[in-house]
Each structure stands twice: as C-alpha cells, then as structure tokens.
C-alpha cells in the first residue's frame, strides 16, 4: 500500500485510474447484459396460442394490426411462421423501438416462454417456416462447402469474414459473430429486414447446416495472423499503417534527431 500511496501523484496515475474505472464498468456491463440463448421448441399447445394472442394484442397489434393482418406501419404476419417470430423477438429486434431504416438488435423484451407463446400464436395464423430442427443447427456440417456457399450467397452483404456491411439508405447487414446457430438458420429461411429469403429449394437444409458450420468454424478459429483489425479489409489496414505505423516511425525519427541541433 505504501508503494501505491507514493505513486498516487505520478503523472500517469489519473490515466491508470480512468482506465481501471472504464474496464470495471465495461466488464460489469458485459456480464449483466449477456442474453440467454433461445432454445428450439416445435410443439405448441392451445394454451400457448391463447397466451401468445394476448401478448400479441398488447405488444404487437399497434403496428401489425389485430389478428396480425398488417397496417400501414407494419406488414401482415399471416404465414411468416414461428421461425420469423423467434428470430425477430428473441434477438430483440421486435418490438421495434422506433420506425427506422431497419429494426435494430437490442436487449430482448420477452423471455423464452413468452417468445414461444408469440411464435405459437403467429404459427397458428398460417403455415410458414417452423423453428429449425436441432440437427441442422448443431454446427457439425462441412465447413469448406459452407464457406463456398457463404461467399456466393452471403458475403456480398455480410462481408467474406461475416463482419457485416452497408446497404442503401441507412440499412445494413449485421456482423454474424455471436449470433446463435438457430437464429442464423431462421434468418436464412425467413429473410428478416432487407435480407432475401433463402428457401430450402435455394439452399437445402443440409447446405444451411454447412454455412452455419463455416460461421462457427471461423469464429472459433479466430484470426491466425494476429489481431484482425475488425476483419474490414484494406481500409482498416491502411488506417492502421497511417496512424499506428507512421506514428511510431515519426516518434523514432523525432527521437533520433532530438539529441543534436
């Protein structure tokens, strides 16, 4: 403690304290906001449908209309299926906070049971994509085949390293790291926001499983060559060499010429 009290007037003490405080706050926040993983369920009881209907009227009908028939503010949900509800609600995108270019991911509003009931209700309105079977989302497929499919079908928006990318007028394709396998599958079959639908005729369920496996693999492998700089390609590399690289070089040139003149 004596050493600590002696160092308290060190010029860097304030910086160190600030850093410590920021890391503590950030760490606690990260722990506190970790969302639960959604679990797949495929059977709905009449009670689920009834409870889901009540939740729907209270939380969703303002935009999606009574009976989910749609309104000027939100599309009809008849026939979108349980998968769409599970994706939108469990990732926190629905209910939407405000109308905007696209629904943003945020802390989810409904727990697993409520999400299940809402999905049951919407699924009861018309046939649509169901929540996928666990065998397609286990990440045990062929990563290399998934990679080929990902580059052909997904990379133009989500980036080859799944780091996300821009679309027109404020819309964007999000980064895919940290998204659960089930949600990725559901996104492919339902095409949320501006994403196109990749139905089973387009990409078979086993190919979807390969894509999920590819995403799992690259997330688990990490970056073999060192810090990935956001996997954003040459822009972050260029920024890095100009700011960090040249910055260090300039510091050295100043040091080398400072002893004289």
């Amino acid at each position, binding site marked *: 403690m004596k050493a600590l009290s002696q160092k308290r007037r060190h010029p860097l003490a304030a910086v160190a304290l600030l850093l410590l405080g920021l890391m503590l706050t950030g760490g606690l926040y990260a722990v506190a906001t970790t969302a639960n993983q959604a679990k797949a369920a495929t059977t709905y009881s009449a009670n689920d449908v009834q409870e889901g209907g009540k939740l729907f009227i209270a939380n969703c009908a303002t935009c999606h209309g009574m009976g989910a028939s749609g309104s000027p503010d939100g599309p009809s949900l008849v026939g979108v299926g349980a998968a769409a509800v599970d994706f939108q609600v469990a990732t926190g995108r629905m209910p939407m906070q405000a109308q905007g*270019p696209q629904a943003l991911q945020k802390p989810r509003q409904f727990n697993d049971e409520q999400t299940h009931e809402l999905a049951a209700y919407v699924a009861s309105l018309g046939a649509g994509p169901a929540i996928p079977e666990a065998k397609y989302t286990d990440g045990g497929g062929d*990563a*290399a*085949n*998934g*990679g*080929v499919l990902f*580059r*052909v079908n997904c*990379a*133009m*928006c*989500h*980036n*080859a*390293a799944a*780091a*996300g*990318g*821009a*679309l*027109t*007028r*404020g819309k*964007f*394709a999000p980064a895919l790291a940290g998204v659960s396998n089930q949600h990725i599958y559901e996104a492919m079959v339902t095409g949320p926001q501006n994403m196109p639908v990749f139905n089973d005729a387009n990409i078979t369920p086993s190919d979807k499983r390969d894509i999920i496996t590819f995403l799992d*693999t*690259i997330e688990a*492998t990490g*970056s*073999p*060559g*060192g*810090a*990935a*700089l956001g*996997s*954003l*390609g*040459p*822009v972050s*590399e*260029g*920024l*890095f*060499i*100009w700011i*960090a*690289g*040249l910055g260090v*070089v*300039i510091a*050295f*040139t*100043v040091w*080398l*010429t*400072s002893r*004289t*003149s």
Partner: protein
Amino acid sequence: MSTAAETPYKPATATGRITDFVDQRVGGSGLLREFGRKVFPDHWSFMFGEVALYSFVILLLSGTFLTFFFDPSMAESVYNGSYVPLKGVDMSVAMNSTLNISFDIRGGLFMRQVHHWSALLFTASIAVHMLRVFFTGAFRKPRELNWVVGGVLLILSLADGFTGYSLPDDLLSGNGLRIIQGVISSIPVIGTYISFFLFGGEFPGTAIIGRLYVLHILLVPAMILLMIAIHLFMVVVHKHTQYPGPGRNDRNVVGYPLGPVYAAKAGGFFFIIFGVIAAIAALFTINPIWNYGPYDPSPISAGTQPDWYIGWVDGALRLMPGWLLGIPLEWNIPFPWGVNTLSLNVLIPALVPAGIVFTVLFIYPWIERWVTKDDREHHVLDRPRNAPTRTAIGMAGFTFYCVLWAAASSDLIATHFNVSLNDVIYWLRALLFLGPIVAFTVTKRIALALQRKDREIALHGRETGRIVRLPHGEYQEVHAQVDDYKRFKLVGYESPEPSAGVPNRNGIVTKQEKRRALLSRFFFEDRVAPATPAELHAAHGHGHEEIEASDKTKEVAR
C-alpha cells in the same frame, strides 16, 4: 626528399593491413573521404525518404523469401493444406501456394505479413516524404528533376503495390483486377483490345497472374531500383536542403558529416524500421486471404477495397454518378459496323482525377518558377507558413485526394458512424469540389495569421503573462524579447512581391506575361513582409524608452 616517402606504408593492425590492401587495389579511401564528409542537416522530417528506402530493402528481402514458395500458376488445383474451412475447395495454384505459405511453411505467414505491411509503409512514407518536400519548397531549383524522379517513384510504387496485391488470386484481389479490367475496357476504341492483350483473352483467363508476377518481381522493382539510384545520386550532387536558421544559407549545409554520426544513425534506423514492421507483422494480420477465399468471378464481398494507395481511384469510381442532370453517362454510339459503347461513367472517374493530380504534381516546380521568375538556387527551405499560397495549394490538393480516399471507404463510414450510405456519397460528392476551396482559403488565412504573429513577436517580443502596474496606475504586460537565434527564424525568410507584367523587347506586354503577372498577384498580393532590421531597431528602442520614460516622469512629478 626523405627516405620515409619511399618506404611503403606498413599498417600496424590486421584490420589496417586488410584495409590498405583493398584501398591500394580499388582506391576506396578517396570515395570514403568524399562521402564520409558529406554533411547532412538534422531534422525528423528529413527521414521519410530513408523510411521509404528501408521499407523497400525489407520488401526485397521478404519478397525473395516469398518467391521461393509462391507459384504464379492459374492452373486448377484442390486445396489440401491445414486450413480447415478451405479444405477440398477448388482454387488456382497461385492461391493454393499462398495458403501453403500462410499455413504450412514455417515463418511463411509472418513473411507474407512483413512483405505486405512494409509495402503499405513504403507507399505511405513516399507520400509523406513528397508532402514534406512540397510544403517546404524543396522542389525548387536545382531539385526540379529530382522531384520528377520522386513522382515517377511514387507511380512505380503504386504499380508494384497493385501487381503484388493481385498475385494471391483471392476473391478480394480478383475483384480489384476486375475493376481495372473494366477501366481498361472503358477506353474508347482500343480498350477492349488492350484488355484482351493483357489478359490473354477473356477476363480472367489463365495468364494474368503469371504476367503480373513478372512485372511485380522483375520489371517494376528493377525500375524502382534504377530510379532510387538516380534519386540518391542527385541528392549527393545537390546536397541536402536545410531549414532556415542562423548561419544557414544557400551556399552551405549545417549539420553532421555522414561518417561516423549519420552512418551509425542511418544503420540503426534501418533496424528500427525493420523492428517496427516485424512487430506489426507479428501482431496484426493483413490481407487474410483465407477469409476471402479463392477468386471466382461471381461472388463479391462487402467491404471490398484496394490497398490504401489505390483507394482514391476506387473512391472516384464510387462517387461518379451514372446519370448527370438526367443525361446517362453511358452512350451507345451507332457506327456503320455496329454499336460502340462510350462509358464516361467509368472513364472519367478512373482517369481524370488521377490525371489532374499527377499532372499538377509533375509540373508544379515549373509553374512556381514561371510565376516568380526565380532562377536562383534554393538550399534553404521555406517554413510552410512563409509560402502561404503554395501551402494553400498543397492543402487544396491534399483535400481533393483525401475526399476521394474517404470515398473508397464510404460503406464503412456508413456502418461505423450509423449514417446512410447514400448521404455519405452525396456529401463526399459536394466535398470533392468544395473541400479544396475551403481548404485553400482556411490554410492561406492560417499561414498569413502565423506570419503576422511571427512579425509581432519579432518586433515586440513574446507575451510573458506578467502584468505590471506602473506608478501612475497604468497596467502593462511585460513583453520579453526573444533571443537572436529565435528571432532569426521569425524574420529570416524570403517573401517575393507580386511582379507586374514586364514588356518584352518590342515594348509589348504579351498575353502570356499578363497571365503570369495575374498569377503572381494571386500568389503574393496579400504577403506579410518580414520585419526589416530598421523596423526591428525602431521597435526595440521604442519599447525600452517608453517604460523608462514613464518611470522618469513619475520621479519628476514627485
């Protein structure tokens, strides 16, 4: 005379004997005496050329390592290396061998990253070096030709960078190559022929990687080496420039001799640069081709950009509208032999901005020489503020470049700052034209303001922040005179005056001369003249008398 002259010189040590042996046969001591006594001034901003040179040496070393394992063939192969997410994927031999360098050859990934990072540093340090030379006026006589050689080196480094970027045959570089192919095809009449000639048929063909490889490792580096030799030779001939200071003029160079101080410093600096690049290469990944996958003309990844130094051309392509004021920029012109397409929406952004920047860059020394009619040699540099118009022109060009550069990352600006991609494009389009004007005006005003501040300090000293109350109640801030060394920096600069058109032999002021006079006025009409010795004398004498005088009157009054 004495017998001592006839007895051969006998060195005492082994080193001495070896040196003497070599010297008697190749006569190195004369060279060493000449070069070892070459004096170089000391300033951190003079070292970027060195950074570029060292990066180039590192490029040669790491590049040689890579050529041992890289196979520039576009033959089809199946990847069977250790990177799981690509196992069993069809790809060219070039991509396959690059992946093997990355994952299966000891130290290969590190060397690839050293090579690529040093390429980025190479081009960046050339750019900064040229900015330094421009803003300090080091391109003036006698260095105009060396400035041109430097410009050629810049273009060569871009060429070597781009050819190298394309070699791994991954998705990212393949997309880049496709854009270049599109640009070439947009050249009227001959474009398609050049494209077919370059790619050996339809894009992508099976020839381009091998051809780029030859350019990348043989032709372009050889030209760079030649240009570096010419560049350094001219530096030796011209001697190095120096910043203004007491005792420094256009006939001397104040600094340290090459040997031993600079030889040691420069040698050490090489290892510092190598160390910095090695540390970056070890800690940060660059061009992760395993993410991009093999090239296939159908897919494209979000966030596809060229390396930073080609970014501005990509940015120009992104900013160019396809339609302008309701008129399409792609014209299909019917000819008797069929319809030919003129794609101005590709041709203009790909060639015009780069054409403007490089033309102005190459001819600027002559523009300034013509405007100022200055034919003297300049070895003392200008502080950027002391050439306000040149500094402002430089900043305008820099802004123009940076807007194009930013446009190449328009999609990442949109996602990372949560703004609409369309708005980013609209703003950058406006900024491309307005930005340089704003930058010119603001820079010029700042430079003139700094000059006025310098003049004020030279004449009246710097403000000390000490307020004294005089006996009669008046408050004054005490100004401290700066010492002579500092003052020299504030007053010792050239400030050309605008020169009116001079009649020629027939007594006529020609149109060209009138234009020159107009430009001269544009350059120098609002100049801030440096304080003259007379002004300095008057100001200093005056200041002291004032305080003393007021003290005396007080005494008398009492």
